[in-house]
């Protein structure tokens, strides 16, 4: 049994000259109604103009030009993967895992 008069370990660490601090060394932080929360801190307002600009850019192109632009994005993504062997391995592993079917059974009749 420990000494019942002995202050708890946390208080002992905060003691100054053998005495506990007069004021709590810290306070628990709590949200109040007038404080902002994560729900208020959103990138959404900043993303909307960007999305509008991208959408306008896409609609200004012909369908074929849009597919060319898609190919540019795909090529850039692949170039990044080629520079990062671990990332490429993860990409392949994730895709294979998502696409696998039981090889010991008949293929699924209704999809996976």
């Amino acid at each position, binding site marked *: 049994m420990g000494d019942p008069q002995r202050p708890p370990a946390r208080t002992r660490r905060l003691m100054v000259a053998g005495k506990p601090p007069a004021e709590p060394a810290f306070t628990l932080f709590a949200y109040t109604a007038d404080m902002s929360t994560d729900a208020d801190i959103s990138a959404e307002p900043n993303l909307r103009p960007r999305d509008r600009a*991208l*959408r306008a*850019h*896409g*609609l200004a*192109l*012909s*369908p*074929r030009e*849009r*597919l*060319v*632009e*898609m*190919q*540019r*994005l*795909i*090529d*850039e*993504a692949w170039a990044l993967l080629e520079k990062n062997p671990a990332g490429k*391995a993860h*990409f*392949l*592993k994730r*895709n*294979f*895992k*998502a*696409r*696998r*079917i*039981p*090889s*010991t059974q*008949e*293929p*699924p*009749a*209704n*999809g*996976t």
Partner: protein
Amino acid sequence: MAPDLRALTVLSQHHVPFVVIGGHAVNAHGVLRATEDTDVVWLRSRESEGNLLRALVAIDAHYIGNEIDPATGIERTYPVTEAFVRASRLMMLCTSVGFLDLFDYVPGFPHESARTIWESAMEIDGLPEMPPVSMALSS
């Protein structure tokens, strides 16, 4: 730069009736983004099953099993067969021209005729080495 549509070209060359959905269709309709695979809805018939099998063999299509190959650390793959094409409503394949997903139904509407997607598809021509391709927006 030309878009890499080799998977679609092979399907066209083998007279498989299909509509493109997924990332390619989304891009064609104006939302620009990268995509990892090619998604296609095809019309199943006895004739198109044979044509599709020949197209898939031409691009070395394999389906992915769930056994891990110790040599690679990823799942083993198996070449598509006639029985596989006949039995699978959804084929998620790796091919020599990338990942290819083939549906014989409209995703999200498995009980409706795949023909319904032709109604919402837009035809795109001017693509290299292939006739006009229909691309539809789908879930």
